[in-house]
């Protein structure tokens, strides 16, 4: 089912990295979120695999601030590290 989830958006992507390394001001697509509580929390907030997102800030230490549509969300380093992204 998760494969289907990714396939629907079927992006052609360059090799990815993890969210904590996202470069400020760039757009990217969420490629993978590990299963579990954080995933469902992110889904509720509106962030799921395949979403296009911009990185607003990358703070020293790796706390990331992203923006999805109008919503700004801060994500701690340890969570950001687990989220795989791919630049567009």
């Amino acid at each position, binding site marked *: 089912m998760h494969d289907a989830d990714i396939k629907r958006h079927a992006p052609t992507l360059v090799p990815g990295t993890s969210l904590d390394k996202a470069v400020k001001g760039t757009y990217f697509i969420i490629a993978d979120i590990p299963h579990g509580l954080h995933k*469902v929390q992110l*889904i*509720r907030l*509106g962030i799921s695999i395949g979403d296009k997102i*911009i990185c607003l*800030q990358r703070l020293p230490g790796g706390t990331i601030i992203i923006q999805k549509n109008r919503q700004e969300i*801060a994500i*701690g380093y340890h969570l950001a590290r687990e989220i795989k992204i791919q630049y567009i």
Partner: protein
Amino acid sequence: MAKSDIIEHKEKHRHIEPENPLGLDSPRAKVVLAGNPNVGKSLIFNYLSGVYVDVSNFPGTTVAITKGSYKEYDVYDTPGIYGVSSFNDEEKVAAEIILEADIIINVVNSLYLERDLFLTLQLIEMGKKVSVILNFADELKKRNIKINAKRLSDILGVEVINTSAVSKAGFEQLDYAIENARMGKQNEDLHKVLHNFLNRVGSQAEALLVAEGDEYISRKHGVEPGSADDREYIYIDRRNRVNEIVSFVEVEDTSKGRFFNLFGRLAVNPITGIPILLVLLSVIFFLIGDVVSQRIVNFTENTIGKRYFEYYTKLLVAEYASTDITVNLLDDKENVEESKTFRIPDGFSTAVEMKNDFRKISRLPNAETEYHFHNPFVRLFFGEFGVITMTITYLLFLLLPLVISFYIAMAMLEDSGYLPRLATMLDRTLNRIGLNGRAVIPILLGFGCVTMATITTRLLTTDKEKSIANAILQFTIPCSAQLAVISVLLSGAGFKPLFIYVAVIFTVMISISTFMNKVLKGAATPLLIDLPIMRMPKLDNLFKKTFFRTYGFMKEAYVWFFVGALLIGVLEITGLLFVFQDLLAPVTTAWLKLPKEAANAFVMGMVRRDFGAAGLFAIELTTMQITVAIITITLFVPCIASFMVMLKERGIKEGLIVWFSAWILAFFVGGLTAQIII
């Protein structure tokens, strides 16, 4: 969820929990305001019920249910949630009341439709009677975004109305929304699945939660919760439907919104954020530490309090009470230049001459008056620690102006949207002590009122985080009333004592949390917080909040001040106070290097720490002694109110451990400091 799980749709079942028609003796219908955090639920609740609840611009303001009444309904304000589930305490609290609700008013922040409709769909899938309120209409307009409410209503199958809660626009439709709340369109596939659980759990709402793997609800009914995969499947499916709905109903004129929120951006990045924080703190420190605590309090305490209130009260009492009064005339250097004593065994009423004489001399600007009432009961109520004189002077003329100004400062921070950004900036730092950035919110609120802040620790996720935050609050954070006394004691003493005070308290804070982080198991949960838009605090909310908090503070504090003053008075009259002073003398004089009478402050501090700190006024202390004394009092046992709340939130065992360790910690650290600086 495998296909085989989906069973036949049985026709005979209840979709909604049994209802009570609104007859006379039937219970009132429950209207529950539910929605994501920071969407305006509390503002609407306040409008409907007239009950005051805090409204602030950060997610997680409300952490408990408040009940009010509106027309023939009971209305409930709930903590904000992103979905109905039981991931943490706030969510459990909200989930429970949502399950019991007859009608749900789902408040939605129109700016974040995509985020918020997730909960809306879930509520509809629970089979609840729902109406949707699209709030923040004003912000939508500002940004040229249009949401087609009619179309949204058709898709969801429930009423959708537009409001702007800050200006009460659209509130005339709230009645309509409540009266016409109904079950929305059900998602066929999911609905069928739910029937599988329905026989066993009784309501569609609980069936959904069980299917979503909610362990708390499942345990309640003794059924096996759905697996994590099931939950993920349902969530992803719902998320996809939400996104689709949003693309149908929302039109944005400008290109995909990039709000430029300069201050917000700057506040979050340490390079600019730390200077911003420092400037903010200095402004607050200057305004409160200088303007309020020196100029305003000087006027209220000395002029209104001492010169008028106490003067005339005591004079009135001396009319009849047997008294010796000493009037000292001081020179520029506060040395006694001249002294005169009036002995009036039967009060001034029989010594009119003397009274006139006394009034003349005691009204000189450099006069200082000391009353020695002979009757112990008169002393108890009107003497130096007089229950009436002291309580009123300290509370009304000293603490009140300071506490109000602290509350205003806190309210401005809360309403601006700055707190979540501060939380983000400090996230990595707090990771080191086992917390995530979110913990900044309860800790900072502690400077307003530790009791209130202790309840707010609910917005943290794990027990470990809550324990650490609770310990920081109870041990180290001085509440506004205490800060008030401290700023008066330290005002004019220069930066050195202030620096020592802050450095010591900060070191203790780091040590406690580092220690607890090592000892307690588990890691910090990673930060995940949505940042609200930054904006100027609204004056009406600022005043309202300050008023209600001040009122709450006074209502509680006066009782304890009264009780405390009575306790001290009785101890003094019976001589027990001196026994206690002697008992504690080795600690007070040798270890803390304070005068023996400082023990009074600790007795008073057990009642309330601010009261204890106030007890220091009565004692002659050097600057460094003051520094030691306020460090000790700050670290001393929490006030009775926050102790009670702590027992409730963290359990009896943890509460008692904290309370007793506070004794040891306060005297240990206070003494250590004394040995170094005095």
